[in-house]
C-alpha cells in the first residue's frame, strides 16, 4: 500500500500477565494509509481503546510492534515517545480534553507552545482553526462555558494545531447528543476531505460508523472484519 503511515506487526497486549491475564489484543496486524477516514468498532471490551493506545504510543504492547512512517515507536524511550507524540500524533479523547483554566484559544495555542512555535504563528493558526471548527465566536470562552460538542471541536482544533501525521480519536462522540456528534463528524470529514488529514476513531454509534470510509471491526482483541 502506498503512503502507509501506521503499521502494526503481530500486536499483542496482555493486562495483568501475572494474576488473571486479560488478552486485550491478539496479534493485530493492520495498516493505515495517508488520508484515511477509518473507524474502529466492536463490542465493549473488544480492545478498541487498547489498540488506539498502542498506535498512539500511550502504552507499550506485550509483544509485537507499531511503526509510524516506518519508524518503530515500540522501542522508543518514554521521553522520546512524548516528543514523538507531540510532533506526529493528534489526540482527541472522550473527555478531559481541555485545560479548564485556559480559554478555547489558549487550549489550542498551548500545544504549539509546547512545540515552541512563534507567538504569531500560534495566534494565527489557533484562530483560523477555531474558525474552521465553527467556534470563531467562542474563542475566549473557558471549557466550562462550552457545550460538550463545542469542547470536542476545540479538541479537534487542538489536535490539528500541532500539524500531526494523523489524528486518533477514542470515542470522540460518546458524550455528545446526536446532532453534536454529526456536527463533529462533519468537521472531521471536511478536514479529511479538504486537507487530507488522516483520522482513526473508535465508536459505538451506528450513525458515526456509517460516515467512515473504512470500518475495522474488533472482537475479543482480534480483527473480525476490515472493509
Amino acid at each position, binding site marked *: 500500500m502506498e503512503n502507509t503511515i501506521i503499521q502494526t506487526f503481530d500486536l499483542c497486549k496482555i493486562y495483568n500477565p501475572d494474576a488473571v491475564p486479560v488478552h486485550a489484543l491478539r496479534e493485530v496486524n493492520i495498516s493505515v494509509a495517508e488520508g484515511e477516514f477509518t473507524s474502529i468498532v466492536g463490542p465493549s471490551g473488544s480492545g478498541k481503546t487498547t489498540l488506539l493506545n498502542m498506535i498512539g504510543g500511550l502504552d507499550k504492547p506485550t509483544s509485537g510492534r507499531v511503526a509510524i512512517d516506518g519508524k518503530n515507536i515500540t522501542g522508543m524511550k518514554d521521553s522520546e515517545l512524548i*516528543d514523538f507524540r507531540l510532533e506526529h*500524533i493528534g489526540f482527541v*479523547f472522550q473527555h478531559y480534553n481541555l485545560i479548564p483554566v485556559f480559554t478555547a484559544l489558549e487550549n489550542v495555542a498551548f500545544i504549539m507552545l*509546547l*512545540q515552541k512555535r512563534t507567538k504569531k504563528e500560534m495566534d494565527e493558526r489557533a484562530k483560523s482553526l477555531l474558525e474552521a471548527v465553527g467556534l470563531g465566536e467562542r474563542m475566549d470562552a473557558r471549557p466550562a462555558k462550552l457545550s460538550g460538542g463545542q469542547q470536542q471541536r476545540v479538541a479537534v482544533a487542538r489536535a490539528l494545531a500541532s500539524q500531526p501525521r494523523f489524528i486518533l480519536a477514542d470515542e470522540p462522540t460518546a458524550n455528545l447528543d446526536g446532532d453534536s456528534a454529526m456536527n463533529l463528524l462533519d468537521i472531521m470529514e471536511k478536514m479529511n476531505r479538504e486537507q487530507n488529514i488522516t483520522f482513526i476513531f473508535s465508536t459505538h454509534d451506528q450513525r458515526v460508523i456509517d460516515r467512515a470510509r473504512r470500518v475495522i471491526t474488533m472482537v475479543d482483541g482480534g480483527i473480525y472484519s476490515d472493509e
Partner: protein
Amino acid sequence: MLAAIAIGLWAGVVTVGTMNGMVDQRMNYLIENEITHLQIHHPEYRTERRPTDYIPNHPDILNFLSSDERVKAFAPRTLSDGMLQTPVKTAGVQIRGVDTETERTTTTFHENMTEGDWLDADMRNPVLLGENLARDHNMRIGNRIVLTFEDTSGDLTSAAFNVAGLFRSASTDYDQRTVFVRNNDLNDLLSEEPVYHEIAVMLHDIETAEAVSAELNERFGDIEALTWTQISPELSTIVELGGIMLFIVTGIIMLALAFGILNTMLMALFERMNEIAMLISIGMSRIRVFMMIVLESVILTVTGAAGGLLLAWLSIASLSERGVNFEMFAEGIAELGWDHIVYPVLSPNEYLAILTLVITIALLSSVWPAIKATRIRTS
C-alpha cells in the same frame, strides 16, 4: 488554601514580631532604665560588695568619659547594702545613691515615678521607695524611715530619710528591695571623701560598648569596666533565648506551611490526574509537568504569603504604635519584670528573610507532588 497560607503566615509573623518586640523592649528597658551600655566598678565590688570597694581614681575616669566622643552620658552611683527600718518592720534593701542630674540624663529611671518627686525635691535626705515596699511598710510621702548601713571605716551608721516619692519599675522584685537616695547625702554618711561604687555609661552606639570598655580597662588600673552583656547575664540570656524562640516559632510556622502546601498540591494533583494525563498524552514532557507543578505551588504560596505579609505588616505597624496589651497576665509578667504592653517590631530584613524562607519551603514541598505528577500514566 490561599487564605490559609495568608492567615497562617500573618499569625506567625505577628507572633514573631511580638516576641521580637518583647525581647527588644526588655533589653532596651533594662539598658536604659538601669544597666546602661557599660559600667565601671572596683574589680572586687561585684563579688564582695564592700563599702570600701569604691572606684579608686574616679576624677580621672569621669574626665575621660566627659571628653570621649563615643560617650553620650554617664552617672556615678554610690551603693550600699543596708537595712530599712520603719515603725512597722525592718527589711534588707539595696541603697542606691544617685546623682540627681547625671542619673536623669543617663537612665530613664525617673520615668518610673508614680507619686511624689524625683530626688530633686527640696527636702533633707529624700528617699524613693518602691510602691509595693512602701505599701508593705505603711509608708506615705513625707513619712520618715531609717536606713542603717556600714560606712567605709567598717562602722554601722544610721540616718533618717524622708520619703519623697514612690516608683514602680517593671519588676516588683526590684521595687521590693531597692531604695534611691542622693549620692551626696549617702556620701556624707559613708566617708570623708565622696566615693562611687559604680559609674554607668550610655554610649551613642551600643556597638561600641566592647571597644570603650576595653579602652577603659587598659587605661585605668584597679577598675573593671564591663559591657551590658557581661553585667547582666539575664540580658544576654534573654537575647539568646529570644533568638532560639524565634527560630522555633519560625520553624513551626514553616513546617505547618510545608505540610499545607504538600497537602494542597497532592489534593490538587488528585483532582487533576486526568488533565495531567491528557497533557502528557498530547506531548507535554515530564520535565515540563514537573516545572508546572513547582511553579504553581510557588505562585500559589507567594500570592498567599504576599497577602499574609502585607496583613502582618499592617498589623505590626498599627500594633507597634498601640502595643499589644497582655493585661490579663499583667501581674505574672510584672513579677518577671516584663512590661505588659508589648510593641511588636520586625525589620525589613526579617520580612525579606521570611519571604525567602517561604519561597524555599514552597519549592521544597512541591517537589514530591511534582514528581508524583510526572509519574501519572497515560493509559
